[in-house]
């Protein structure tokens, strides 16, 4: 009896490897179809990431690789411009995180408050339009604006304050602020669009009932709209953070990290310059690794906070 049930039982599931081999012989066409993606991912993602990690412990130029242990990391700590670079990045990050919560949101709320649908549509298009301008072009225009005969000094001369004029990007106390100021009033663009979409998705019934209860425009914003679009605000803050952690186009184009040794230097630019100026790829890789770690830590904190908030809501 025992033996008969045993004979009737389904065959043992094959070991993972044989299962894979069987699937491979039956579905080989499917594997071929995803092979190009896998190859590109292997060559241009997995290989560089491994190579970067390994080489951050080496002296590395194009010709030779010499194991140096933690020397690159030690050098990074010793480098007198490193603290300045991280401080500059912190200033840029915090300013831009504040900017993204205030200016595009303010613009979006104004546009959503318009009652004339056609007018609202055209304002929206107008404030979306600047996304077509490449960031480099914007930075380029502002670089001229801050120059000796640039727009800012011309305006100062026009209002008889010419004495205040200076080469703004050449002054240690102004250069970083000048870079953060690029793109003022920071309303137009994708952030604006995302806020408008979020605000428009709030149901009219909620807004109407708020009005019936006598809420004015400010109360509606702070007690109804803002809590409802909190997620979008958090997403945009995170995106801004990640973007400015790795982006160094503006300092690269406007000041190359100056004035002085590190007036507007940021870690990303430090990495770029290690490669471009010194062909010091090992040092560059080490900076890349530290930036990567910083991003991971922030993402983890961010994840933890949003999970705790989600828990708080459900309980």
């Amino acid at each position, binding site marked *: 009896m025992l033996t008969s049930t045993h004979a009737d039982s389904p065959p043992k599931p094959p070991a993972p490897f044989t299962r894979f081999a069987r699937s491979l012989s039956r579905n080989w066409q*499917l594997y071929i179809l*995803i092979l190009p993606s896998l190859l590109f991912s292997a060559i241009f993602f997995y290989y560089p990431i491994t190579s970067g990690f390994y080489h951050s412990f080496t002296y590395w130029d194009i010709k030779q690789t010499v194991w140096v242990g933690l020397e690159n990391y030690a050098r990074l700590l010793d480098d007198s411009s490193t603290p300045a670079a991280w401080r500059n990045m912190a200033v840029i990050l915090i300013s831009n995180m504040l900017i993204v919560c205030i200016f595009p949101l303010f*613009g979006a709320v104004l546009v959503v408050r318009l009652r004339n649908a056609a007018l609202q549509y055209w304002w929206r298009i107008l404030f979306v339009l600047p996304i077509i301008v490449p960031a480099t072009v914007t930075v380029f225009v502002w670089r001229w604006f801050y120059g000796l005969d640039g727009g800012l000094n011309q305006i100062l001369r026009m209002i008889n304050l010419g004495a205040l004029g200076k080469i703004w990007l050449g002054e240690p106390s102004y250069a970083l602020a000048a870079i953060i100021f690029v793109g003022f009033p920071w309303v137009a663009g994708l952030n604006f669009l995302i806020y408008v979409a979020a605000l428009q998705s709030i149901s009219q019934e909620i807004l109407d009932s708020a009005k019936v209860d006598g809420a004015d425009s400010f109360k509606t914003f702070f007690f109804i709209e803002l809590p409802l679009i909190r997620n979008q605000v958090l997403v945009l803050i995170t995106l801004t953070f990640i973007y400015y952690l*790795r982006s160094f186009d503006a300092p690269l184009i406007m000041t190359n990290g100056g004035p002085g040794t590190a007036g507007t230097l940021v870690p*990303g630019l430090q990495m770029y310059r290690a490669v471009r100026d010194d062909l010091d790829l090992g040092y560059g890789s080490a900076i*890349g690794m530290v930036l990567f770690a910083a991003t991971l830590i922030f993402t983890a904190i961010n994840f933890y906070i949003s999970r705790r908030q989600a828990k708080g809501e459900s309980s």
Partner: protein
Amino acid sequence: MKLRRHFDQIIINIILVVIAVFTFVPLLTLLTLSFKDIDQFNNQPMGLSFPLNFQNYAMAWKFMQDPLWHNIIVGITAPALSISMAAITAFVLARFNFAGRPLLFGVLLLSLLVPNTILFVPLFQLIIQIGAQNTLWALILPYAANQALTIFVTHSFYKDMPSEMFDAAKMDGANTLDSFFYIALPLSTPILSAMAIFQVWLIWNDYAWPSLVANSNEARTAVTGLIYFNDFSRPEPGAGMAAAVLAALPMLVLFIFTMRTFVAGLTAGAIKE
């Protein structure tokens, strides 16, 4: 009451006009500066000054035509390669069951979680190693490898498609590729074009990478060309501004022809990135 509400609307419009002026003055200044000769440029940089000087554009075009052309080639080839590989991969992963599928999916999407700063240096070395520095390949290959976002977005799209469609096609004798090309692809064209436009936009905006690996006359892109032209060729200032206008123009054209897709692509791309 009614009057007050009307008044509110006027105030909002006035504030919006002020914001718009601050937003657009730099861009309009760029445009007007691009029509000034060197005297007008230095003596009256604000506003239009006549006669308009079209010579700037002739000078800028002479330098910028190659970079623009390079960027158009890269901006077409790389997204085309990336999207076609990503779409078929996403389709296979979404509609078929085979051993190792979840693992492969994870392997292909991991790059979404990793900031690309970490790739910058080793990728530079790789490009030199394969001899692609200062050629368009230095741009096309890494950009074409940028597939994770498209795989992620189209995978969920293909997964949500009703399986009756594919069952019926199978009964009629369609194979994997047939059901991709005749059913899945036509239905996913909007989402794929949105992703493609997002990639074109990213490529057109990228400065740091091309300025490092493709800063030669043979491979310079539009925005790298713009900076190089101004910093090293030392043109007349108006011509430098005209080059900036030329560098931005193709995006304007793309926007005008694909407005809805453009906005959809950038929104989806920016949020998921």
